[in-house]
């Protein structure tokens, strides 16, 4: 691995590819697109309860009509980066994480904000995202091509097993009950088979509706489940006062800073940093030297935890953020502050979150396998441009891949430059009245699907899926497995059938090569992973084992 990375650093082909990518991004038009993407992404991501997946789903239509996919993907990379950053702002100032990967940030970040340290929390989140995001993108740059070269050797049965891994990990980790997680997955797979069969041309499960002949577009499913489902769910509670306990914390306010800073100063002891803090207290600094000293290691550790978890098809960003949180809690020199606003508890998980996204791009770009809901919607964006991520993409659309990777670097820098100075604007966005917010989300969702298809029927199909999403939320079914089933179900089916056709219908094709067997075993482990703590506890003779589950909002 180390040798491969070193080799990568000096690889002239890689350098040339990346330089070409930067050459494409660094034009006035593309820089403007990147800036627009970052700003729009943050704007929508900041809206309460809206995470990156929903941000991307809502803003997908912006890219439909680009004749050139490069510009679209530059905009898109910006939207993603901005959506993620915006989510952390909401978690910190409003304690409303838009998705489960921001929950860890919300735990400590919101406490920091309540104690008058909102600016430090926002800054450590932003800089940590930048540092870890950049590390993640560098790693992505180095491993993408080698993994793609490796993936060329993959056979259909290996893709089948990979899809199984993605199913198992996402379904079991986001669902509070495995039955409900698997029901969601089965629903997704059934929606995925609607339409014409790719291999035989037969029409399937259309129930006599002509418009379903082309299948149900993933954008319709994503926007329906995420946007319409969420808006209906939140709107239903709006008038019974379900949403009015929210309190937005003004990052510039000094009101509560008194006790926080006094306590900090007392905890920190004496020394130059304590004096420096006292001297600047009135200006409410972004980050003191002490904050930086306490943040930089969590940033690096977060990146180290986040990237591999994203890169392996193992459940996206939820696991590494909580793992990073637990790590920082164990390593900190200020254990008493955890739960009351420890800066390490913001720095680590935010870094892990961003690094893990760069990680999820590895299986997405090289294998065409999305390992999180957000990655699944990214895959939908590729499909809009008739691009199929996978090993061939690096040969057929090398330019696009490297431009996308270069634009991730640029987006990360723009984000850092734009966001902290504009924090006042984002606070205003947080204050948007909820009725207008949900009205706007519904209007945008309709606009998106209408502009995709120009057909009222598809808009109505989206509403039906939205009602499904509404009830899924009420009965605690996870929605991410549905998206995964719609996208990966057909991939898995086609690959599985190809493998069977190749073997003449002999099922042993799935266990005839070590690689396939290993992948299938990983899928089994992924399925059992949430139960590992319970199994371990059982083995040790205790009965209080708990199932490990990460909440899933979108």
């Amino acid at each position, binding site marked *: 691995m180390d040798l491969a990375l070193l080799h990568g650093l000096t690889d002239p082909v890689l350098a040339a590819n990346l330089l070409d990518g930067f050459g494409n991004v660094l034009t006035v038009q593309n820089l403007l697109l990147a800036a627009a993407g970052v700003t729009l992404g943050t704007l929508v991501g900041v809206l309460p309860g809206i995470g990156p997946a929903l941000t991307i789903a809502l803003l997908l239509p912006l890219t439909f009509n680009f004749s050139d996919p490069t510009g679209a993907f530059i905009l898109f990379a910006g939207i993603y980066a901005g959506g993620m950053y915006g989510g952390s702002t909401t978690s910190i100032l409003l304690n409303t994480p838009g998705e489960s990967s921001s929950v860890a940030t919300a735990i400590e970040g919101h406490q920091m904000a309540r104690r008058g340290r909102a600016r430090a929390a926002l800054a450590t989140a932003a800089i940590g995202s930048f540092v870890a995001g950049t590390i993640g993108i560098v790693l992505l740059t180095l491993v993408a091509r080698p993994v793609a070269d490796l993936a060329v050797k993959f056979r259909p049965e290996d893709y089948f097993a990979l899809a199984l891994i993605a199913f198992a990990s996402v379904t079991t980790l986001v669902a509070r009950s495995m039955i409900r997680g698997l029901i969601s997955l089965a629903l997704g797979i*059934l929606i995925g088979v609607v339409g014409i069969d790719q291999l035989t041309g037969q029409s399937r499960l259309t129930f006599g509706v002509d418009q379903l002949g082309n299948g149900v577009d993933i954008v319709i499913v994503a926007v329906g489940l995420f946007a*319409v489902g969420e808006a*209906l769910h939140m709107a239903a509670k709006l008038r019974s006062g379900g949403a009015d306990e929210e309190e937005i914390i003004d990052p510039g306010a000094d009101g509560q800073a008194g006790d926080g800073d006094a306590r900090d100063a007392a905890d920190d002891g004496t020394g130059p940093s304590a004096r420096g803090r006292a001297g600047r207290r009135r200006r409410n600094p972004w980050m003191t030297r002490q904050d930086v000293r306490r943040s930089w290691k969590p940033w690096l550790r977060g990146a180290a935890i986040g990237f591999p978890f994203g890169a392996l098809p193992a459940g996206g960003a939820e696991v590494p953020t909580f793992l990073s949180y637990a790590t920082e809690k164990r390593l900190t020199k200020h254990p008493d502050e955890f739960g009351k606003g420890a800066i390490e508890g913001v720095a680590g998980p935010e870094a892990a979150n961003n690094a893990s996204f760069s990680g999820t791009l590895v299986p997405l770009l090289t294998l065409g396998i999305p390992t999180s809901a957000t990655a699944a919607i990214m895959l939908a964006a590729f499909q809009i441009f008739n691009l199929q991520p996978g090993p061939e993409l690096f040969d057929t659309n090398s330019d696009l891949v490297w431009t996308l990777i270069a634009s991730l670097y640029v987006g990360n820098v723009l984000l850092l430059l734009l966001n902290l100075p504009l924090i006042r604007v984002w606070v205003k966005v947080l204050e948007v009245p909820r009725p207008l917010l949900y009205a706007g989300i519904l209007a945008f969702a309709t606009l998106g699907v209408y502009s995709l298809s120009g057909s009222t029927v598809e808009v109505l199909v989206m509403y039906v899926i939205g009602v499904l999403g509404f009830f899924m939320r009420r009965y605690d079914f996870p929605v991410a497995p549905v998206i995964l089933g719609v996208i990966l179900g057909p991939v898995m089916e086609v690959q599985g059938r190809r493998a069977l056709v190749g073997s003449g219908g002999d099922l042993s094709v799935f266990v005839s090569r070590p690689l396939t067997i290993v992948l299938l075993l990983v899928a089994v482990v992924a399925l059992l992973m949430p139960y590992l703590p319970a199994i371990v506890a059982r083995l040790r003779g205790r009965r209080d084992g708990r199932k490990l589950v990460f909440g899933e909002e979108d």
Partner: protein
Amino acid sequence: MSTDGLHTTTTEPARGVVHERHVPWAGPRLVGVVLLALGVASLVATTAIHSAELGWSLEGPRMAPLIGSVALIVLSLLYLLRTVWRPDVDLARFAANEAEATHWPTPGALLAALVGYALLLGTLGYALATTVFVWLVSWLLGSRSPGRDAIVAVALGVGVGYAFSRWLGVRLPAGPWGI
């Protein structure tokens, strides 16, 4: 959605003492029955897929929907079982809390507004339909600042319509007024 999203256990400590028999099971059971019906419907639809040569073979077009529908049927039966035997009280309590917080006429009216919006989009044109929709939905959701809502609604309808059709080349229905 708050930090409650983090669940390290399936058996959360009960908020208040809610005994099993007091938990309403009608909702979860109805959901199970609907899921079961969906599974059966797709199984029936699966048998209707033309598959002359391949029949029910593993590599035929019927296999994936067959696996999906059978899985859904089995899983929804398991789900129904958990409402009777070793009942999943957490789920029932979750659903009961949701039901308590729900003001039912709101999502109903919202859905009607959505359908009306979709159907009138072509006739009224994007700008007008969106303006009316946003204004009406804000009011439905409890906003009591019709003036402010109207300004936002017009900005969204006309502004977004203009921006999307002029700058992004999205074809939106023009309506009798040309916007």
